[in-house]
């Protein structure tokens, strides 16, 4: 599972999303859309969103920090990967 989080440094919900994933030992790539112009373009092209965090999970786009949505997504992903084994 590849996760990219598009963030701004001042965004609280971005920090909450990162903490949520950190606590569960899930790795992700963070792209700061303020410092990195290309990340900003990439985020807007992918999602047409003007709000952070934008979370890209294997190409599926999520906007904002929605704990229960992320939780169930991680759960279904984990059961998928354990089935593969």
């Amino acid at each position, binding site marked *: 599972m590849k996760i990219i989080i598009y963030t*701004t440094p*001042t*965004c*609280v*919900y*971005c*920090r*909450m999303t990162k903490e949520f994933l950190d606590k569960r030992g899930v790795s992700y790539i963070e792209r700061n*859309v*303020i410092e990195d112009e290309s990340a*900003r373009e990439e985020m807007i092209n992918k999602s*047409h*969103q*003007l*709000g*952070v965090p934008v979370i890209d999970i294997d190409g599926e786009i999520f*906007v*904002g920090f929605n*704990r*229960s949505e992320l939780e169930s997504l991680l759960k279904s992903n984990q059961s998928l990967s354990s089935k593969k084994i």
Partner: protein
Amino acid sequence: MYDLAIIGGGPAGVAGGVYAARKKMKTVLITDFFGGQSLVSADIQNWIGVVSISGFEWGKKLEEHLRAQESIDIMDSDLVSKVERMDGGWRLLTQSGKAIEAKTMLLTSGSRRRKLNVPGEKEFESRGVAYCSICDAPLFKDRAVVVAGGGNSGLEATIDLLPYATKIFLLHRGDVLKGDPVTQEKVVRNPKVQVILNVEIQEIIGSQIVTGLKYRDKISSDVRMLDVQGVFVEIGSVPNSDFVKEFVKLNDWGEVVVDHKTQRTSVEGIWAAGDITDVMYKQNNISMGDAVKATLNIYEYFRSR
């Protein structure tokens, strides 16, 4: 069965929790997250004893203080969605499907952002319509934006946007701005800012993202259009009192009516503190104090029974 269930993890809930734990009341606190509405504040400068702190760090401090208490149960990442009366107390049902029983309740669930409720608002949420200026202001670099609301939060959103936006229309429905004079001065004298008063916002327009906002001038009744790519909504708040509206007395604004000496509500066994109540000033320091008052009164209530 718990002696006390505290609903909410903002300043009021945490203050109540710390006091209840120190009084050794059997207490549970249920909250979605810690820190309340100030969580999204860039810089809190009026929390007494600390000169300056971000809302995020402040929320962490509240959580840390509560978790340092030995005797309190904490259920975070959850919300109370329904309350039922039961023999000798209350049954609280949470979003995740748990049921909690408690003899008394302290309501500290605060309030949430008021929305404009105009066409286009929902459709373009996070496609130009924003509710967290500190989060999203940098994304509006080189764009023109509207800030809706002339109170303190509207003024602060304008300040957050100043380094990025090319033009900021500050729209207010009244005929004078409401926020603190010190902040007003800072905002109004900036050439990027144009204040428009007596405004009734009618519609947010766009295709993939926001392209404009339509409003009516309440004096002339003219309908005008602003070419903007962003709308920041800062028009006050609505109390989170829906889950108790069948039991406790609310005022016209949905605030829980309390006795300000004891924080008791209209129903025996239910107290409330902070922004959910009809307290005149919605402030972190006041919410904390009011919750302390409530908790001490709950302690008295058990002792005198």
